[in-house]
């Protein structure tokens, strides 16, 4: 085909341009689906509970990812500040993933357990009351807004379609019992999602106000689980080298 023709026909030009651009991406991405070592073999990674997942949705809604990444790279300075480098396995149930290296605030991949619920509550409402030099905006409405969890089953169903192993039938539930153990499997069962969400929020009392379930409850529950699923003490400290 003469390039004359391509250049005079926008439709064809568009298709060929897209093909040319996607070639690079395809060459880099598609093989990763087939290489066995891409996702490390590691215990403990599970999908988020309904409350954590709802907190994650608020995290994306508020645009936390614009300033915070969740990807500790295998660099000395990052390991010293944030902890063990992130594994591909740790974000395998994330939709969308929160990788990145453009940071205004610190990386949050291992923030779980680093601070108390109390700290997160006060820090999200008024960051500068605890960290005077912080440039993070205040998010006071999170503590005031009741958490809307009426559509939690729909949200989990959508993630299930995307490949996250939430269970919607007895057979799927039993598969999860085998894969994650009974305690975790119960929290992944879609028909019980609302009940589980309320139970976790009541028990955890994440925003230090037991009277209601707010968006802050969900967000803190999510932050407190980040990076805590894998117990690195169970592995040699170079175990993950062999996957690269």
């Amino acid at each position: 085909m003469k390039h004359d023709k391509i250049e005079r026909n926008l439709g064809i030009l568009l298709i060929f341009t897209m093909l040319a651009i996607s070639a690079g991406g395809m060459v880099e991405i598609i093989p990763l689906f087939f290489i066995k070592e891409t996702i490390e073999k590691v215990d403990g990674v599970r999908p988020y509970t309904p409350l954590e997942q709802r907190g994650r949705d608020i995290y994306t809604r508020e645009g936390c990812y614009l300033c915070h990444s969740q990807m500790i790279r295998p660099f000395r300075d990052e390991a010293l500040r944030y902890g063990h480098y992130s594994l591909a396995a740790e974000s395998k149930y994330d939709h969308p993933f929160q990788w990145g290296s453009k940071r205004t605030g610190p990386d949050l991949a291992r923030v779980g357990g680093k601070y108390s619920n109390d700290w997160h509550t006060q820090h999200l409402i008024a960051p500068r009351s605890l960290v005077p030099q912080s440039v993070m905006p205040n998010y006071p409405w999170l503590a005031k807004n009741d958490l809307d969890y009426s559509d939690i089953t729909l949200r989990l169903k959508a993630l299930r379609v995307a490949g996250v192993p939430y269970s919607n039938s007895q057979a799927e539930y039993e598969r999860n019992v085998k894969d994650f153990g009974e305690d975790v499997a119960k929290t992944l069962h879609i028909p019980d999602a609302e009940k589980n969400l309320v139970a976790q929020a009541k028990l955890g009392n994440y925003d230090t106000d037991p009277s209601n379930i707010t968006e802050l409850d969900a967000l803190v529950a999510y932050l407190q689980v980040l990076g805590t699923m894998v117990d690195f003490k169970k592995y040699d400290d170079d175990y993950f080298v062999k996957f690269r």
Partner: protein
Amino acid sequence: MSQDKTTTTATPKTTGHNWDGIEEYTNPLPTWWIWGFYITFIFTVVYWLFYPAWPIGDKFTKGIPGLHTITYKATTVDGKEVEKTTHWNMRSKFMHEMNEMEGVQKQWFDKVAAMSFEDVSKDAELMQFVNSAGKTLFSDNCAPCHQAGGQGKIGFSPNLTDDHWQFGGTHDEIQQTIVHGRKGFMPAFKEVLNEQQITQLANYVLSLSGEPHDNAFATAGAQLFKSEDAGCYYCHGADAKGNTQMGSANLTDKIWLWADVPAKSTQESKLAEVKRVITGGLDRGVMPAWGGRLKPEQIKLLTVYVHDSLGGGK
């Protein structure tokens, strides 16, 4: 470069396209540029020999074996140190870099780990390391709650620079606090005591610190404090000096953590602050456990830093 067609002797070749009178030259690219382009081709081949590159089925090439390797020391689950050599990849390079850094710091950390707390704090040279490494560790991990200089924040976290220690200020007690974390708790008295009794107790608590108070109420409060009705002395002690074993506050040291009495200017507002704590109790003040996050030698160093550098006394 841009040439005016009319002033050049030889007419340059054009692509033959004519877009509304605009033509395009087909001048050759500069030689240095075209060679740079070819060199990138050669570079990719060199890259394949040295680094992980091509996917093949469910595996990938890892460079020519033995051509570009990294040697590093690793610690196994059961604490053994092993040396390994692998093909170059980001994670083995990371292990190597961590080894290098630890090599520089190890002698100091080993000294801290081997010596007793008292000996570390007497060793001036070692304390220089403790001060600089401790400051970094403190800023990364402790400062968000205890603030940059360890001064704490009334209503949130205790001051680490004074001589008062809620859970004990010896080296061992501080280390215990860092490893396992802490939690503040005081029961709410709104169901147990009536309004007047709480006012009496609050006046007594204010009197202990020499704050303005009502004498009659404070005397009654002192009785109540030691009585079975309120039972304050179970935790705070008959002398109200607290108990570091359970982290109950010393009420006589003029240091306030949960009731922000110093910030209030009037007797009524100071009283209201103390009454708020007695009425509602306390179920916060959680300090996370750092045993799983920091290494034992880092915790020991932080302990010395908090005890000896931030100005802890006992």
